[in-house]
């Protein structure tokens, strides 16, 4: 009997025809979904089934150097030719690193029968190179990457596939990215100078292909970098699960971890009435209680979890009632406030976290475990015409947490340069705080009489207020909203 093969878009048509004639015969067993070639090779002595471009560089606009890529007929692990990559020095005018992808020239390959990307490589220096697959500059659905260290002789590298059953039509065959070699081991992105000693080098790649090794063992996938994270929060809180990957044991007994895209994972919430999680790992807290978010690849549970203890609906601080014209606002959604508000323009080294949270469109600042923090903004404010300062504070640490609020006056020069012309004073708000409740605190400006941690002697001048500071002697955690003078 002649076999009928319906592929791609014709499948539906085929089904329709088959159904209409089903009284006469069953749908052919040969009517299968379209499948894509499972060609394993990517580069042997020549590129195999890749786009004409072969190498497609990352965007030169972000510093990728498109010039260092080629093939080398004088070097090969096997056969006659290998891929040669010249990694630029950081000062190269054409770009300070090299990287990009190889793409299947067709509609993609079916990689579901393989368990690893493998290749041989060697380098003139033992540089670190990011390698992977699944990036196609189109959907970028299934990227996997890891970092390898080159050796001076040919070595085989194995990049395991977290869940090959997902890769039935993959165009992203290979990805690499390499920056200059750091001989002093002192690279620090915050210090541009630290890269000046770096040097370019060359590495070669050969026999690049997908393989069914059968010898890679998935030890565990992981989310949140494998950590069990616990947070306290409220209805409306959102967080994306990140830190995704998987750790494998290879035939040589070594473990290798790969970063894996979110599409390899499934997520679950232990209590969908407290928190939900979607297929993209977005967590939404929707009620009160405790929910634990976990992840998995296939039937393998991931290490790491997010335990959310939700207090339910978050109650925002009361809306201020002062008239707009009567206030000078530092931070409030109800008033026009200063420009350049910064909730942590400085912070003591023991301060754990500073963040801005939003519930029902209203922002507040969350301080966790502070020793001291400074609130800053553009310029200074002159509050000599006001008598009071208002702040809403909700204590989130235990009752008994100590908190002093300070006003820092920069002085006539409007500059934060110590107490030459500046002044500062503090007010102890500890006794007014209530755990878990917003408390509106209204302090006469004449009450900031305490000496400050920064050396102020109390009773600051009011013409050039540049910072508001909170100080805690016992690591207070609290929320702050609606800071304004009136």
């Amino acid at each position, binding site marked *: 009997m002649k076999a009928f093969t319906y592929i791609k878009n014709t499948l539906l048509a085929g089904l329709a025809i088959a159904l209409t004639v089903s009284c006469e015969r069953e749908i052919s067993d040969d009517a299968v979904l379209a499948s894509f070639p499972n060609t394993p090779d990517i580069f042997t002595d020549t590129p195999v089934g890749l786009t004409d471009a072969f190498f497609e560089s990352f965007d030169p606009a972000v510093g990728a150097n498109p010039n260092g890529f080629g093939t080398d007929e004088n070097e090969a692990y096997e056969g006659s030719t290998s891929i040669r990559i010249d990694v630029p020095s950081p000062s190269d005018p054409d770009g300070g690193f090299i990287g990009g992808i190889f793409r299947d020239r067709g509609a993609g390959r079916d990689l579901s029968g393989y368990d690893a990307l493998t290749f041989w490589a060697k380098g003139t220096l033992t540089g670190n190179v990011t390698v992977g697959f699944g990036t196609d500059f189109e959907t970028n659905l299934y990227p996997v990457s890891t970092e390898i260290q080159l050796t001076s002789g040919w070595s085989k590298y194995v990049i395991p596939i977290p869940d090959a059953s997902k890769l039935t039509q993959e165009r992203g065959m290979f990805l690499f990215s390499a920056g200059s070699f750091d001989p002093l081991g002192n690279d620090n992105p915050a210090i541009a100078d630290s890269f000046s000693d770096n040097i370019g080098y060359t590495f070669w790649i050969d026999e690049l292909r997908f393989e069914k090794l059968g*010898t890679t063992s998935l030890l565990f996938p992981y989310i949140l970098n494998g950590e069990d994270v616990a947070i306290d929060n409220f209805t409306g809180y959102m967080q994306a699960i990140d830190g995704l990957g998987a750790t494998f*044991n290879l035939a040589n007994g070594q473990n290798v971890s790969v970063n894996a895209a979110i599409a390899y994972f499934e997520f679950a919430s232990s209590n969908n009435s407290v928190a939900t999680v979607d297929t993209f790992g977005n967590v939404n807290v929707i009620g009160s209680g405790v929910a634990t978010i976990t992840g998995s690849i296939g039937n393998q549970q991931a290490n790491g979890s997010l335990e959310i203890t939700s207090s339910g609906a978050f109650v925002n601080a009361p809306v201020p009632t002062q008239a707009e014209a009567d206030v000078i606002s530092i931070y409030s959604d109800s008033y026009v406030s200063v420009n350049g508000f910064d909730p942590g323009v400085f912070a003591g080294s023991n301060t754990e976290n500073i963040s801005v949270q939003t519930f029902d469109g209203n922002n507040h600042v969350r301080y966790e475990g502070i020793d001291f923090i400074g609130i800053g903004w553009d310029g200074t404010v002159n509050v000599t015409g006001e008598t009071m300062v208002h702040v809403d504070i909700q204590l989130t640490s235990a009752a008994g947490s100590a908190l002093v609020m300070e006003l820092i006056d920069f002085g006539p020069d409007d500059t934060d340069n110590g107490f030459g012309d500046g002044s500062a004073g503090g007010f102890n708000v500890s006794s007014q705080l209530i755990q878990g409740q917003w408390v509106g605190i209204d302090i006469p400006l004449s009450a900031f009489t305490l000496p400050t941690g920064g050396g102020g002697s109390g009773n600051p001048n009011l013409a050039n207020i540049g910072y508001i500071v909170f100080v805690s002697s016992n690591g207070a955690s609290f929320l702050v909203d609606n800071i304004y003078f009136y």
Partner: protein
Amino acid sequence: MKKLIKHTILALTLISSIAFVSCEADETQTVVTKTNLIMADEFDVDGAPDPSLWTYDVGDGSQEGLPGWGNNELQVYTSNAENVEVQNGLLVITARENGSGGYTSARIKTEGLFEQQYGRFEARIRLPQGKGLWPAFWLLGNNCDQNPWPACGEIDIMENVGDEPTIVFGSAHGPNFSGAESITKKYELASSRFDTEFHVFGIEWSPTIINYYVDDVLYQSITPETIAQDTNGEGTWVFDNPFYIIINVAVGGNLPGNPDANTTFPQRMLVDYVRVYN
């Protein structure tokens, strides 16, 4: 298990095996075929291993005068269910890390309960994983009390070190071929692992030959002649009396090295069955 392996010895064994005992199924191969089942533990009853068949070595070997069981092994063997238990049709030997950096595990044996001279001994096992793990399925002569090791003989049907998940090795120990000088050979899986799936490990042992198998592959034959050859005539075939079975998971020591940061505990060896034919 009482041994060290040197690569030179391995190389020697390998060469001699190729030279004198082909692993190919050709006409020169001597194959024993024993099919009469005389003992089987299918591990079908949950709980402690069948006491009519299995007993235990416990402790760290000090009582036997062998602290670290002669190999600087780190584990303390127990007969506790958390270290050895039959569950869901499998014997489970679990190596655990205790709170103080030590390890517990189990070693069970048929000494005095089932001892057999010659035959086919096999077990279907999934091995544990990770650097420092040292699982074994092996036989020891039943007269070591009167005839101290290595004179009483040792036949290691399967040993593995956990950071070589595709490799097992089979060995024999006797006078002048014991410990580091034992006769041994590796068998490597090309496209699967011993710690992610079950494999059958067996020997067929007759008065003149011990054949070592993994699944259906014969990979080593040891005979009085190969022993003499490997030991310059100094080794003696001592495999003509009853032996008993030992199954254990050791942790650390001279052969596998100690667990490292990547080794996770607990680690389990799963035994589907042990069968003996004659």
